[in-house]
């Protein structure tokens, strides 16, 4: 009985993960869109920018989500536009999580002047209005790619992660197993990565999910105000073009509702996933 305990803990995690309604709902929604982004483009014969039909038509059998002002297929643009959303989310969110955790680990573990410097730096970046900074950077760059966008978002979204990870590192550092690792001659980074980080793995997963959603939202905002990538298509760019050509006053709902709703759904689903995961990781929050 006793020997089985570690296995039972893993199963326990799965048990609660599979039974958590929020987690199931959130993950399902995200997976549906991931699936669409992967296989969607194979279901459409068109190019996202090609003029393939009569302009400004509502959804029909040939054009599932209607056509734009210029006769481009909205469904084609939609499925192609989903891909960069995930790209920016994973790259930007991943980068923000990485920078945030590394700075948080270092500041929390080293303490002293390292902590002072990193903490001041974090606070400075934290109070800079991120969007304003992104606007300025985006406006200065002539040619912008999705990759660049992810990079900028990742480099500005990390501060709150750094602060949270620093606080957790501080509390874990005071535990005696860290002292034991130190008198075992382990190097600081090994202690951080093999002793401290595994203890906050669940937290780091949740941080990544939140950063993922935040990056999608940030990217969509930039796209929407016309500072998105100069080439390619994304959901944010679709909304921007739609509004630019008067889709709203003309009542062309099929042009801007699908991308807008998708962004809202996707980000919402990520937050719901996060709450669900929190409940799974933290027994006190579990649904009965």
């Amino acid at each position, binding site marked *: 009985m006793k020997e089985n*305990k570690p296995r039972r803990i893993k199963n326990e995690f799965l048990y609660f993960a599979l039974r958590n309604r929020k987690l199931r709902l959130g993950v399902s929604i995200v997976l549906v869109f991931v699936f669409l982004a992967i296989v969607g483009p194979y279901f459409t014969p068109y190019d996202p920018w090609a003029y393939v039909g009569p302009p400004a038509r509502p959804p029909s059998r040939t054009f599932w989500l209607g056509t734009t002002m210029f006769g481009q297929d909205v469904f084609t643009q939609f499925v192609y536009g989903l891909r960069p959303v995930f790209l920016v989310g994973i790259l930007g969110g991943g980068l923000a999580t990485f920078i945030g955790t590394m700075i948080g680990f270092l500041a929390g573990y080293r303490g002293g002047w390292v902590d002072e410097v990193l903490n001041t730096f974090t606070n400075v970046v934290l109070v800079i209005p991120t969007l304003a900074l992104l606007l300025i950077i985006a406006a200065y760059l002539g040619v912008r790619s999705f990759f660049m966008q992810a990079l900028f978002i990742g480099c500005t979204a990390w501060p709150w992660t750094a602060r949270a990870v620093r606080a957790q590192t501080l509390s874990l550092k005071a535990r*005696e*197993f860290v*002292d*034991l690792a130190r008198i*075992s*001659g382990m190097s600081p980074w090994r202690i951080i990565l093999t002793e401290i980080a595994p203890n906050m793995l669940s937290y780091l997963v949740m941080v990544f999910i939140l950063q993922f959603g935040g990056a999608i939202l940030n990217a969509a905002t930039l796209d929407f105000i016309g500072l998105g990538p100069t080439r390619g298509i994304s959901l944010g760019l679709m909304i921007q073009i739609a509004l630019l050509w008067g889709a709203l006053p003309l009542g062309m709902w099929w042009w801007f509702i699908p991308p807008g709703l998708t962004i809202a759904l996707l980000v919402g689903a990520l937050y719901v996933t996060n709450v669900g995961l929190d409940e799974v990781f933290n027994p006190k929050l579990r649904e009965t």
Partner: protein
Amino acid sequence: MLELENVRKVYRLGALGRRSLCAVDGVSFAVGQGQIMSLIGESGSGKTTLGKLILRLIPPTSGRILFEGQDIATLRGPALKDYYRKVQGVFQDPFSSYNPIFKADRIFRIVKAEFFPRVGEREWRERVQRALTSVGLVPEEVLGKYPHQLSGGQLQRFLIARALLLDIRFLVADEIISMLDASTRVDVLNLLADLRSQRGLSILFITHDLSLAHYISDGAVILYRGRVMECGRIDKVFGSPSHPYTRMLLASIPRLDQKWEEVEVRLKSQGTPQGEGCVYLERCPMEKTEACRRVRPGLKQVDDDHFVACHCGKEEGVSCASAEARGSSPS
């Protein structure tokens, strides 16, 4: 072997570090090879801080700690690793000494990875088993388990076994007995005594239990509020205690033939000591002189290898460390 010279540790507290707490204040003593030195004091007296200072887990605010004549604050990289090869510690709380998400025997694998990367897998397993057996554990029963599946005593002995895997010369044993039950307690104490006689191991035995200290050690340092009250050979400190605090501690050991009411003990302190006077002033039952209020007493020699920090004594101006260094023989 290990010498502390006027070690101080001040913690900054509060916003901007305006308040300060002196955890260890001007402590000097020395532990010779093969000596077991007891560090005795109530909670908050700075015992654990001293242990951590010696293990170089925290840096002293001032003063020096010398190991084999070298200041440990200067050790870096390979030299520091070499220091940990010789100087090890066992901590107070065995439950928090283990990373809860890994198996308990991971601490042995860390020692192997860090200090003995070239030792073969099979030979290492034998060494671990030998170390476990010597602390009275049955290897098959305790290996491959998670910390929460083992008892406090087993975890504590794991930690001692871990220290034995290294070629240790000095062990900081911070309250290692308090988690053990009475029967294993004696076993572990005897194990420590054996290690001392076989390997010439020196031990700093941090404890609040006077009878244990008396049972095992050669010397004692009585600590109060980070300052040494009395130190010297164990039979002298315990046989003819010269500081009122030591006398109070000895009087407060529960005895089978005495009821608690008969023992008069003043345990509560009334606030923090202010200014320059003796730190023990407010609890001291003796007649207080002007000197007690004005001057913080230094250590004075009352006998060979016996020092006390009280104004009531006679001779002035010798430190415990210098006397120890002059020639105290083990046992």
